[in-house]
């Protein structure tokens, strides 16, 4: 399993799962149409309470990352089309704020930060369009 749970983190476990699935989708590790393990499978594999997994899946579904056609299994959706633009921007800004703080801490200047971001976007796009 490519998910890693860190119970010593202050981040609730369902949120760790949501974040990691999102990252896997964004980076092309998971592709549209891929089937996620069932709630039970994932709960047993990770030794995590199934309600926690179910909560993560519900959030992923509400955000349009995952679809559950006729309630049978969870599949990676085509894109985050379920979100309206304002909410998408709000969620993205949260991540950007974290990056800005890290850039300041690590003395990464504006130019390097923007270059790195562009490189990573290019790389993720290449990987998603590959195969």
């Amino acid at each position, binding site marked *: 399993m490519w998910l890693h749970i860190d*119970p010593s983190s202050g981040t*609730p476990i369902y949120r760790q799962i949501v974040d990691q699935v999102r990252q896997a989708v964004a980076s092309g590790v998971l592709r549209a149409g891929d089937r996620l393990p069932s709630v039970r499978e994932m709960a047993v594999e990770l030794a995590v309470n199934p309600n926690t997994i179910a909560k993560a899946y519900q959030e992923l579904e509400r955000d349009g990352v995952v679809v559950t056609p006729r309630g049978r299994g969870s599949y990676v959706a085509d894109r985050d089309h379920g979100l309206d633009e304002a909410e998408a921007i709000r969620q993205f800004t949260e991540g950007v704020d974290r990056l800005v703080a890290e850039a300041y801490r690590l003395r990464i200047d504006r130019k390097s930060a923007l270059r790195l971001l562009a490189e990573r976007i290019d790389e993720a796009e290449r990987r998603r369009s590959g195969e």
Partner: protein
Amino acid sequence: MSDLAISLQGVTKRYGQREALRQVDLAVPAGSIFAVLGPNGAGKTTLIRSLMGLMHLDEGTGSVLGYPLGPNYPPRSLKERIGYVAQQPALYERMTAGELLDLARGLHPRWDGQTVRRYLDLFSIPRDLRVRQMSTGTRAQLALTLVMGGNPELLILDEPTLGLDPLHRHQYLQLLLADSVEAGRTVLLSSHDLHQIERLADRVTILVEGKLTLTGAIDDLKVTEKRIRIAGDPTEADLLAVPGVRRAVKEQIGWLVTASGRADELRASLLQVGGVKAVQVYDQSLEEIFLSYVG
């Protein structure tokens, strides 16, 4: 049937002058995995033993799977529905695993031989192994096998994974989850392993000196229980006057505050306090939340 597998109201237990449990109210939803946390001597084992009818209560009422606590508690018909593993399970030292299982089968009308065979296989416990030859970890595994064979509706586990190495602990918890949740089984457990509880439990309660100090869903607690770093030189009294603030500790630079509430509201009200220059709110792990109530 009621939605609560266990409910207690105002339960008090005294040992001489000392109150081991003080006015404990507890509500364990059916089908949930509920963890009782607390430092040594906080009353966890007393609480668990009361639920098993192994202890006379001085005050309070309650019920387990619909049966009221009281003089004739627990009736035989209820005992069959509860699987109880004590902290150091008393297993007959001279018996073999197989002999113990045969004995347990005789006591349980709903014995599930298939589950037992599966567990013995997974745990690699030979039927002819004598208890006195078993390691602490193997004893814990056998104790789980014995109760799961009885197909209980309610599992009560006192420090169940003590003595298991990390690999076998993970396997133990996987089995517990796999075989409890779909069966709708309620699990009440006590543990010191907070990382394990964080994964496993729906709800936790923290017992300190016989009193329940905090009860809730783990995810909710993580949203509301915050650690806050404050720059500036406010007074302790002013900080403690802010709603939700439980503790303020002066540090070399500024103050460290523990508080319950929403991050944005706490930040806003702390910024109003005289002398406060900056406020940083941090999330806490279950372990940090625990320490903030117990320490």
